[in-house]
């Protein structure tokens, strides 16, 4: 049986849509974001800053029912869509 690509893509795809909607990114389509693309690099075309990080963190916590620890570890989860998806999956067990 073939794996359903929709299911496989579900979490990263949802995160990309959430990112664009939450941060009101104009001119960026969810499907144009690469899952391994750095979110906060200085030259990132997404142009995220610390304020958008908080917005995105709150939105992820609320939507996926997970909580990032307050110990500074959240930074590493926010590297890319892939790392966020991995965190959500591990947090949900």
């Amino acid at each position, binding site marked *: 049986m073939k794996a359903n690509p929709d299911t496989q893509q579900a979490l990263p795809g949802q995160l990309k849509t959430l990112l664009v909607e*939450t941060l*009101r990114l104009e001119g960026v389509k969810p499907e144009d974001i690469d899952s391994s693309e750095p979110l906060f690099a200085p030259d990132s075309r997404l142009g995220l800053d*610390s*304020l958008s*990080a*908080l*917005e995105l*963190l*709150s*939105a992820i*916590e*609320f939507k*996926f*029912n*997970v*909580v*990032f620890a*307050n110990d500074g570890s*959240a930074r590493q989860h926010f590297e890319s869509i892939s790392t966020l998806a991995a965190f959500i999956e591990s947090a949900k067990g």
Partner: protein
Amino acid sequence: MRGVAITGLGIVSGLGVGAATHLTALRAARSGLRPLSLFSLPGLPVLPVGEVDEELIRGQHPSRSVALALLAARQAVAGHALAGEGLVAVGTTTGGIQESEQHYLRHRGQEGRPDRQLLKHHPAGAIADVLASEFALGGERQTFSTACSSSANAIGYGAACIRQGKPWALVGGVDSLCRLTYAGFHSLKLLSSEPCRPFDLHRQGLSLGEGAAFLLLEDEDQARSRGASVLARVTGWGCTSDAHHMTAPHPEGRGAMEAMTAALADAGVEASAVDYVNAHGTATPANDRAEALALAALFKPPGPLVSSTKGSTGHTLGAAGAMEAVFCVLALGAGFAPSTAGLTEPDPLLSLRHVPPGGLVAPLDVALSNSFGFGGNNATLVFARAAP
């Protein structure tokens, strides 16, 4: 400085009666809001409210507010003999007005009319009088009427009295639904036609509620020496005034932020130590915006988890501060942050870290509770988990 232990809790609201019932309801994110049935007012819609089930207080006392207060205070005292010169402090906005309204509707203020018993508990201070009499409590007696921060201030004052050496303090608040409040909030266009949705993009106002909550405070060492279990501690209290408007909060939440800052300073903890905030969160556009601004100004990202339990109880005015103090104590004790009932689509303009739907199981050490009243009467309390 003396530690202030919370050794007793009592609560009644539209969710039911007792701390355990409320923890179960919060875990289920249950809403106690249903269409008003206590009275009807010509020309006004029947809106969802947090109304106490009649069965819980039937025949308990002629005054609805006193009956609610007695029910909650009895649980908080739990049969413990309160000896010596302690404190009874009650927060309320309208006291026994529910029966005064019935008298007015029957007799329209005509001189010499019967049913004068209906007016007996009209003064706001009557509730504390009845409690003192019922439990044979000597010592100091106070009534706070600072709008929606009334019972938060009663608790803060009680904690201050314990620090100064009083042996115990029975503190809390009560308000019953009444026509004055219902019609008044309706006139101010602050009531939501659907169950309130704090911090939601589609929030349209608050839902009123009623009930009572009381806490028994004692010196921590004394409580431990008598073998009482310490449920949590009151560690800080701050109260400030907006000096801005009769009903609207300061648009940037200036007084709210000052109250939180003062409470944290009183508790001697940094903002970063706060794990959970039980927000005032009335679901009015103005309150939620101002409170979110104040929280964002005070807490560095990502900040504490925030929720409003008014989506479950409605806004119980003079009882709100005490009810939400009980919820903070339950949250610290159970390691559970309740979510905001009614919040489905967070307002993107409010920079808040909402407790995810269904609540969050996590160790919580410090909780902060906000109560911001009309006239810019702000109070914040800080609670800490009891040492094991």
